[in-house]
């Protein structure tokens, strides 16, 4: 369909007044859906964080009573003491919420939805309807998960990885009853949502790019979202399979994961022939890509924000893409590093070790490229920039400890210790959360047409950054001293007494971090209504999202023709230009082609985007109703 035709259709569309429901609830506008994901993600994040604070209280003051625990948890907090079963439940739901609901749906859902159409120059997602479904499945999934926290026997409590047999047998622990059933239902809904979203992201990136937006002119955000969606599309179905088998084992008497089990108070079970380790293989076949599903969008956002605020081209654009590609590919063949000590063949362990350590190379390339981008830049410290730099710091600190854990030999000692908790909270938790904050601060004007308060942002950043290190850095030492994770308290082991003070420090820091998030919430919600009106392109950015009017809500993104793209997204501080940025859509009539960028050497290729529309893409278009 030609742009003009689209435009005409859009005009027609604009005529009728949208009802509240179709505008805010069952909206098919990617910008609104992105806000829905964001708000839901923020709410889930708050819940997940409060959970972590509650169980951190228990770890720091195991002998004390907290009225707040009794008040919030009722029968699980009798006398102000957290119940051990519920402790496990909180840890599990905290992990589940953070990994899936905040950093998968909240992060990808928000920014893929917002940025893919706007940055590639499309009127909307390939299938706005599927996009809407994607959000509502996510919403239902969130609701089911939260309900599961309130059921009588408590929520799923076997850890976010829900390994059977623990999770398969309702007599093995209370949380494996109804709570676990709801957990599985929630995850199935979540997977559906994730697949609907992913298919959309991929087809939009492949098919809906505007004139001149060849793949090698796409911002790194888009590349990251694209690879992320591919990873999700290939790995989430495996989790679905794993979950279905678990559902069968739990409810229909099959024995996929169960064998030779005797349960205290029940007796020997009938199941034989299954393998609990099978579940772990299936789970981690998703589980490992999942950590990159979390991290890569954050890295993409960071690339964009750092380049923009350093007023400098991102260093090694191609290398960045290749390393994303390398990470994506390798992430499918390293899942075994979570299973070194399950008793698998030592040779297999060696293979997984080698593959895992190879991933460190593209990761290192990314870190060095970020550093070089900062070098001799002109760094504008917006809150978004600070959070991006924070991400780089966490990515380095947490990534380096991956080199220990990926080493099968070292993992013997470190597996499931607090060292692991430190590692993944830095490299995946903190880094990705910071990427998300960077994205929120950076694109807030694009979402709401207003600015967030900078000074509050600075406070938010520095307090969160410092406390995050205070929370997670000491955990390395606990882990290296042999302190296991997922322990309700440590006082029963005399050797762990030395960590009591550290645990207090960690908890106090976590509480401060928690309160700092209130600054963010205040800033966010107040700015939606009262923030200063934003200029059209407040950050002096090159990318297309700042060319679509930000003060009116347009379903269709651009009032007239779609913008045409003439160059790559990172032309900052070109020596031949007065301004320190050069938006992608501005034709360079006079600009001499003297620069050492390979992108600028190519004449603006009008036909390029069209040429890529192969038979396959045409078919995809047809299927998703793009005609």
């Amino acid at each position: 369909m030609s742009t003009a035709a689209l435009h005409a259709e859009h005009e027609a569309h604009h005529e009728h007044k949208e009802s509240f429901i179709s505008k805010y609830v069952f909206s098919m506008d990617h910008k609104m859906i992105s806000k829905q994901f964001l708000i839901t993600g923020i709410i889930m994040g708050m819940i997940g964080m409060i959970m972590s604070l509650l169980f951190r209280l228990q770890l720091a003051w195991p002998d004390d009573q907290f009225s707040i625990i009794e008040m919030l948890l009722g029968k699980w907090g009798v006398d102000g003491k957290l119940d051990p079963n519920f402790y496990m439940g909180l840890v599990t739901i905290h992990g589940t919420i953070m990994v899936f609901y905040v950093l998968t749906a909240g992060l990808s859902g928000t920014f893929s939805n917002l940025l893919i159409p706007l940055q590639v120059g499309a009127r909307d997602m390939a299938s706005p309807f599927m996009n809407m479904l994607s959000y509502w499945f996510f919403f239902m999934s969130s609701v089911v998960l939260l309900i599961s926290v309130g059921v009588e026997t408590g929520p799923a409590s076997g850890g976010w990885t829900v390994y059977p047999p623990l999770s398969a047998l309702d007599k093995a622990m209370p949380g494996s009853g109804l709570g676990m059933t709801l957990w599985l239902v929630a995850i199935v809904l979540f997977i559906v949502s994730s697949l609907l979203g992913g298919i959309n992201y991929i087809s939009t990136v492949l098919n809906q790019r505007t004139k001149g937006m060849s793949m090698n002119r796409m911002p790194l955000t888009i590349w990251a979202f694209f690879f992320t969606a591919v990873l999700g599309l290939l790995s989430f179905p495996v989790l679905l399979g794993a979950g279905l088998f678990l559902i069968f084992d739990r409810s229909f008497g099959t024995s996929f994961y169960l064998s030779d089990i005797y349960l205290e108070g029940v007796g020997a079970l009938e199941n034989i022939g299954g393998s609990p380790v099978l579940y772990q293989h299936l789970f981690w076949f998703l589980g490992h890509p999942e950590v990159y599903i979390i991290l890569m969008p954050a890295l993409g956002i960071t690339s964009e924000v750092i380049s923009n605020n350093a007023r400098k081209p991102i260093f090694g654009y191609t290398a960045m893409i290749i390393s994303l590609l390398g990470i994506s590919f390798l992430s499918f063949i390293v899942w075994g590093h979570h299973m070194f000590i399950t008793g698998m063949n030592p040779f297999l362990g060696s293979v997984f070790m080698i593959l895992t350590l190879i991933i460190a190379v593209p990761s290192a390339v990314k870190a060095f490229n970020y550093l070089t981008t900062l070098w001799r830049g002109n760094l504008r410290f917006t809150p978004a920039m600070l959070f991006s730099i924070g991400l780089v710091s966490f990515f380095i600190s947490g990534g380096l400890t991956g080199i220990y854990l990926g080493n099968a030999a070292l993992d013997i000692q470190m597996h499931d210790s607090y060292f692991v908790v430190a590692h993944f909270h830095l490299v995946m938790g903190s880094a990705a959360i910071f990427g998300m904050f960077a994205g929120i601060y950076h694109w807030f004007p694009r979402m709401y047409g207003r600015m967030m308060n900078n000074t509050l942002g600075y406070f938010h950043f520095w307090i969160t950054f410092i406390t995050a290190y205070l929370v997670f850095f000491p955990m390395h030492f606990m882990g290296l001293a042999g302190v296991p994770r997922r322990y309700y308290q440590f006082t029963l082991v005399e050797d762990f007494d030395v960590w009591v003070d550290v645990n207090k420090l960690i908890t106090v820091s976590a509480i401060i971090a928690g309160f700092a998030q209130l600054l963010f919430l205040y800033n966010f919600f107040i700015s939606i209504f009262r923030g200063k009106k934003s200029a059209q392109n407040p950050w002096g950015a090159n990318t297309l999202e700042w060319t679509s009017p930000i003060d009116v809500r347009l379903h269709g993104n651009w009032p007239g023709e779609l913008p045409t793209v003439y160059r790559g997204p990172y032309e900052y501080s070109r020596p031949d230009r007065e301004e320190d940025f050069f938006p992608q859509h501005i034709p360079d009539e006079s600009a001499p082609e003297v620069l050492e960028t390979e992108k600028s050497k190519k004449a603006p290729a009008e036909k390029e985007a069209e040429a890529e529309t192969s038979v396959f893409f045409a078919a995809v278009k047809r299927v998703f109703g793009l005609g």
Partner: protein
Amino acid sequence: MAAADVVEAPQEFNPSAWDWNTILTLSLILLVILVIARAFDIGSLTEKISGKRIVSSHKINGWIAIVFLVLGLIGVWYEMVYHGKYVMVGNAASEHGATYDSMFMWTFGFTFVVFIVTEVLLFYFMFRYSYREDRKALYYFHNNKLEVIWTIVPAIVLTFLVLRGFNTWSKITSSDNEDAQEIEVFAYQFGWKARYAGADGKFGDNSFTFISGTNPLGLAVEGSVDELTQSLNDEIAALEALVASADDSAAVWKARLVNFEAQGRQRAYPEEYKKIREMAMDAESGAYVRGLEKEIKRKSTNVKRIAKFRADEKMFNKAGYDDKVVTEIVLVKNQPYVFKFRARDVIHSAYMPEFRAQMNCVPGMSTQFAFTPIKTTDEARAEKGNPEYDYYLYCNKICGAAHYNMKIKITVVDNQAQYESWLAQQAPVVAPVEAPAAPVAPEAPAAPETPAVAIN
């Protein structure tokens, strides 16, 4: 709050006041920050870009970065000194531990250098290149040479680490030591048991179908297994009786429910009411009978399986009668061991950090780990200056509510004699009262069977 008033405070400070005070204090601090932010609202960036105003917030953040860097490095150093000393390195109590520790130190060396260099650069750049109106950033897209270098160099370092890791891993996991003594370590919710072979050096066979209250490891002991069959059959009979009288019991429950409601007691006794109603509903819907039948099926499967094994004479060869099932692991210094792990309910993990050893214990799957202890408990105590110190094996795979308290003591003794005298004090598995009753084909080159007293 109310609840905190009810409980008498065991500590001298009042915890309920504690958490509310904290919340109050932090909220106040937040308010102060809000006020500061409003008061000093440093001009927004929009203005800066259009209005060409130098905004000092860039300088400020640059300086904070430097302060953070310095304090952070001090913090890292502090942690290394004050908590680094608890890190398990250089003091391994097992032979392979030294190899492990050296692998650790190599990895630490490389990563620490990279950590310091990159983090210092990061924060230094923040300071050095903070925004100035009069400067333009370097227009610099890529540098192939540089990029190749920092791809190749990490690759080389990682290759080194991989090769070393590969060696270490192979050394640790190859357990083909002929002299190694086997010990079975058995995990259950929530505890550990260890089993030593008796004088014959052979372990008796086992199956999860044999597990019972008196035979927690499911060993092939005739008396105990027959007793289990008997009691399972009794239970099945009892359940069948319940099924037979299900109609009556449904009527009874229904009557009770009607009665309860008629008397209007559901308000006063909600718990009882709920229970009665549930029972009545289950009885009516047939869920009650289905549950019973499921139990019967499960139990008869177990009986059938036991019967099949019971016919297997190899399994019931009495090799296990002299095995010792113990609640403490005793090892001899410098003696190689192979630990065979079993779990009966859910996955557990045997974690022995001092020995740099860990292995999952998986129901239905046997796993193993081999190591040689090289430091006795006494030596470790002397080293730590703590006469109470003991080695432990911890559970390190989430396994339920008491996961955090699932451990077993490991004692490493100096010589074989100490070990043997300890082992001699432990009771053998066999329950000798039942032994004569069992119809045994006297095929074993039986050491004169001591009709020992029942020990348990």
